[in-house]
C-alpha cells in the first residue's frame, strides 16, 4: 500500500535524493533544511550542511527556523561568519547550493528581487538576492526548488536576473567572469525534476512527479522546455522517508 503524502513532503524527498553522501551543501531556509536533514538520515549520513551566517556541520537534530539561528550551528564543527562562508564557497569547497526563486528561466537564472518592468519604484518588491547570488555563482552544483510550477514562474524572460544560472547559454558564465564548471544542476518542482542539457545548458525535463504527465509540465512552462529521451517517473516518498521526515526531521510539523 502506498503511503499518503502532501506536495511539500514530495518536494523534500525528491530534493533530498539529489544530494550525494560525503559532500558539503549550502543550505537555505525551509525545504533545503528538511531535505538536508532527511538526506543525512537516509543515504547521506556524511553530508555536511553549511549555513551562510557561519554554521558548519551542525547536527540538525532540531530544525532551524532561519539560516542564522542557533540550530544552524548546534553541535557544529565550526561557527564562523558570513564572509568566511561565502569565501569558502568562492574557493570551491561547497558542492551543492540550494536556491529558490519567484521566477526561473530556461537557463536556470533566478529572480527574487522585483516583479514588473521597472527597477524603482517596482510593481512588486521581493526580498532581494540575499546569499543566493553567491550560492549561484560559487557552488559547483545548484539545486533550485520551485514549489509552484506554472507559466508565471517558469518564464521566458525574468523581470530581474538576481542570481546567475547559465545566463544566456553555453560559455556565458565563464565570459561574465564566473567560475568554470559551475551552474544549475537540478530544478525540483511540484510537477517534476529538471536538469540542464549538457551542450545547450537549457533546462530539460528528466522526471515527472507521480501522476503528472510530460505534457502537463510543458503546458505549465512558458519557455520551450527540453525533454529527456526517457522521462522517468519520480518514486513517491517511501514509508521510511515519510517516517523519518515526520517523526525525526520535523516532528513539530513546522514545515510539513
Amino acid at each position, binding site marked *: 500500500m502506498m503511503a499518503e503524502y502532501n506536495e511539500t513532503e514530495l518536494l523534500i524527498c525528491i530534493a533530498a535524493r539529489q544530494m550525494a553522501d560525503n559532500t558539503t551543501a549550502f543550505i537555505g*531556509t*525551509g525545504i533545503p533544511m528538511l531535505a538536508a536533514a532527511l538526506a543525512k538520515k537516509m543515504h547521506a549520513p556524511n553530508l555536511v550542511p553549511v549555513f*551562510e*551566517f*557561519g*554554521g558548519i556541520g551542525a547536527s540538525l537534530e*532540531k530544525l532551524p*527556523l*532561519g*539560516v*542564522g*539561528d*542557533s*540550530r*544552524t*550551528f*548546534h*553541535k557544529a564543527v565550526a*561557527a*564562523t*561568519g*558570513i*564572509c568566511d562562508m*561565502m569565501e569558502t564557497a*568562492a574557493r570551491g569547497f561547497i558542492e551543492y547550493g540550494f536556491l529558490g526563486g519567484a521566477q526561473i528561466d530556461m537557463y536556470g*537564472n533566478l529572480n527574487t*528581487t522585483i516583479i514588473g518592468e521597472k*527597477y*524603482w*519604484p*517596482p*510593481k*512588486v*518588491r*521581493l*526580498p*532581494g*538576492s*540575499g*546569499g*543566493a*547570488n*553567491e550560492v549561484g*555563482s*560559487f557552488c559547483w552544483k545548484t539545486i533550485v526548488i520551485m514549489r509552484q510550477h506554472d507559466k508565471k514562474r517558469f518564464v521566458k524572460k*525574468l523581470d*530581474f*536576473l*538576481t*542570481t*546567475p544560472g547559465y*545566463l544566456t547559454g553555453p560559455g*556565458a*558564465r565563464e565570459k*561574465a*567572469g*564566473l*567560475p568554470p564548471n559551475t551552474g544549475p544542476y537540478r530544478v525540483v518542482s511540484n510537477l517534476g525534476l529538471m536538469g540542464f542539457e549538457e551542450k545547450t545548458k537549457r533546462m530539460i525535463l528528466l522526471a515527472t512527479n507521480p501522476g503528472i504527465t510530460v505534457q502537463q509540465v510543458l503546458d505549465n512552462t512558458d519557455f520551450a522546455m527540453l525533454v529527456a529521451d526517457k522521462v522517468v517517473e519520480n518514486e513517491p516518498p517511501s514509508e521510511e522517508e515519510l517516517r523519518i521526515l515526520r517523526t525525526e526531521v520535523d516532528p513539530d510539523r513546522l*514545515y510539513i
Partner: protein
Amino acid sequence: MNVLESGVSELFVKPDIWNFRDWVHKNKHQAMTEKLMTEQEAVAKFVADGDSLGTELYGTVRAPMSLTREIIRQGKKHLKVAGQGITEIDFLLAADLVDTLDITYVAWEVYGISNILRRAVESGRVKTADWSNGAMAWRFKAAAMGVPFIPVLSMLGTDTFRYSAAKIVECPFTGQKVCLLPALFLDVGLIHVHRADKYGNCQIEGISGFAHELARASKKLIVSAEEIIDTEEIRKYPEHTIIPYYLVDAVVHAPFGSHPGEMCYRYWRDEEHLKNFLEDSKDPAKTKAYLDKYIYGVKNHEEYIKLIGMDRLKKLQAMIGGR
C-alpha cells in the same frame, strides 16, 4: 582604472577612507574610557538624522532590537540603512525613518516577504540599490580593511550587479573580470553581543555573522550586551574579544536586547510575537498600532521588558538549546 561596466544605482555612501581616518582621530578615544549608558543616552548622543546606519546580525538572531526601538522612539530620520535583516529593518521602515536602502535581503525567510518593505519601496518613499548578501558583508570588510573597494567574483553577469553601484574591471594580474565593491563606511553601527565590559570589549558566542566587519566599518559604534562583565574576564581570554574597546562609543546593558529575536545559548526567539507582528504588518493601521504599543508606548527597554513579561521571557530562556 579601466572600468568595463558600472552598476547604475546611486552610491548612497561614498567610500572615503581619509574622511573616516580623520573622524576617528578627532573623535574616538584611544585609551580605555568608561562607556556604560542607557539606550536613550547612546542613541541621543551617537545617532543623528541623516546618518548611514547598519545593524547586525539579522532580525530574529542576535539583533540590536532595544537600540532599534530607541532610535524609533527618538525619531531619528532620513537614515541611510544597510538593509540586511528582518524585524529591525521592518520597524525602521514602518516608522518612516529611512530614505535609502542598500538592500540585499529584507524578508521573513520561510514566512515570506515583508509587507512593510513592499509598501515603503513600491510607493517610491524609499530608494534602493541592490547587492548580494556576500557583497554587503564584503563592503563592510573593505571598510574594515581601510580601503576604498574590494574585489569579488560574485555579482557578475546579473541584474543584481546592474542595479548596484559596483563596477567591473579586468584583473591586471590574470585578465579575468572582477567585480569591485565600494567600501561601506557607516556613520553608526549597532551590534548586540553576549558580554561586554564597561569599556566596550565584547565577546560573542556562536556564529559571528558580520560583527567583526561591521564593528570596524562604523565611525560610531553602539554595543548592547546581555551581560556586563568585569575587564578581568576579558583579559583572561583575550582571544575571545571580537570587538576591542577602541571601536566602541557606547555600551548599553540590555538583557533580552534581541527580543523578539533569539540570542543563542540564552533565549529562543518569540515565535508567537513575531507571527503576530507579521500578521499586523500586512495592514498599515495595525502596523502603527504595534509600534504604538511596543515602541512609542514604552519609555525604554526596561518598560518594554515589563510589557513583554518575565514569565514569557523565562519560557523563551527554557526553550533555547545548550551546547
